[in-house]
């Protein structure tokens, strides 16, 4: 099963296996990884599963579609950056095996 590394704001790294087809949000929540709140349960409606995608992976995850709900929600997130994504909107695929995601200071 492909793995994902989630790095908390304090630097703690957690590498876990996430099944293909599962969202990277669920991958964090089901492994009890702190720092991904996911208040809306994956509806792209709260921006509390926000991460920064490591530069090396950004061409494979891509950025939110212009005008998409994800882009709108991210525009309200605290400390959004050009490599921000909502993990509920990225599904695991083979080509993302090993992806590195960094978390913001808090989910808001």
């Amino acid at each position, binding site marked *: 099963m492909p793995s994902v590394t989630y790095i908390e704001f304090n630097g703690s790294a957690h590498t876990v296996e996430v099944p293909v087809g599962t969202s990277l949000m669920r991958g964090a929540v089901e492994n009890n990884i702190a720092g991904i709140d996911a*208040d809306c349960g994956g509806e792209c*409606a709260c921006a509390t599963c926000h991460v920064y995608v490591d530069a090396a992976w950004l061409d494979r995850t891509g950025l939110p579609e212009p005008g998409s709900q994800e882009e709108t929600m991210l525009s309200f997130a605290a400390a959004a950056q050009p490599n921000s994504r909502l993990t509920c909107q990225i599904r695991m695929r083979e080509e993302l095996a090993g992806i590195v995601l960094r978390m913001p200071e*808090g989910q808001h």
Partner: protein
Amino acid sequence: MDATVNVEAREDAYSRPLDSIDVSVPELYQDDVYQPYFERLRREDPVHYCADSKFGPYWSVTRYKDIMKVAVNHQVFSSKWELGGVRLEDQVQGYERPSFIQMDEPDHGQRRMTVSPVVAPANLQRMEGMIRERTAHVLDALPRDRTFNWVQEVSIELTSRMLATLFDWPLEDRHRLMFWSDVTVCHVDTPDAPVHSEAERWTELQKMATAMKALWDERAKSNAPRFDLISMLAHSEATRNIDFRELLATCSLLIVGGNDTTRNSMSGGVWGLSQFSEQYQKLRQNPELVPSLVPEIIRWHTPVLHLRRTALADFELSGKTIKKGDKVAMWFVSGNRDDDAIVDPHDLIVDRPRAREHISFGFGVHRCVGNRLAELQLRVLWEEILKRELEIEVVDRPKYLRSNLIHGVRELPVQIH
């Protein structure tokens, strides 16, 4: 509450014709008898049209998933004050309050982003120590073995101090902020409301705005802006030139948002745990459950009963056609008790799995901006209660506010042992 729900209300909810169910009646919340009506609507008519109410015809959206659909679709479901705003009770002509909760994009977003840093994670970390100190002080001063009103002595005391800090308002004058908060949310036809007409409400809010404007003008001159709401508004590109009416509306929104909902969750949580005493015992034995208790209290109490939208186009929702121009109420208080979305929704469960997935903060672009501050205040309160091993005994049922908007607890008599 649910265990002892008024039998007459249940009979009434299930015996009257569906189309006569009107959940906008404020007395339903004052008398704490609303749940059977929503229970029936969720089962039999989840997107419900009420043709005739005191607030005009309106739709009620009662299921979690349908509320989510309305909340995220700000392209169709407008918040604009020009169309009536975000309460079932329309804005009265001449007394409209154009705050950003009652705007659509891009106006809403620009203004929201001006104030959101005050409640962003980095600032909350800075505030936690102060919140803890105040909470400890308030709890340590409470009487023992004597009945007192938890709402007044704890909930209002703590949230009014927080609100004064957010505005950098004189702490000794914090009761005035509480008064204006009550003025903003009340139905003016409530017999013991703080004001009794829209004109009177406006007069009081003008006094508030005049006081805020004086602080604003002073802080606008400062080259080193302070980190309070007034300074942030006075220095932001999006808000520095707003007119007096918008200043009044914005301050009024931030006063209510900054205290009222947390105040009522502080009271609702004590009441809830008294109704589920085995859960309270579990919590006392496992204080590490507080981070899951906090969202569970916010769900179970649901401090904002509804928010309203106005449809900008026809929209199909669960088999009903909402017409352009129709008023639509998202009943958070019902969505949070929807057993299609939440297991055993009437129970307060201190270690509920996925407790964060409640609908009390709304969803989409208008999602509560202060939600993390609210959670922080509640977390600290319960940590400090448990640390002191306070045994809080509720000695009578709460008295609720007459409101279809705010799930307000006015009195909660308790004793501490």
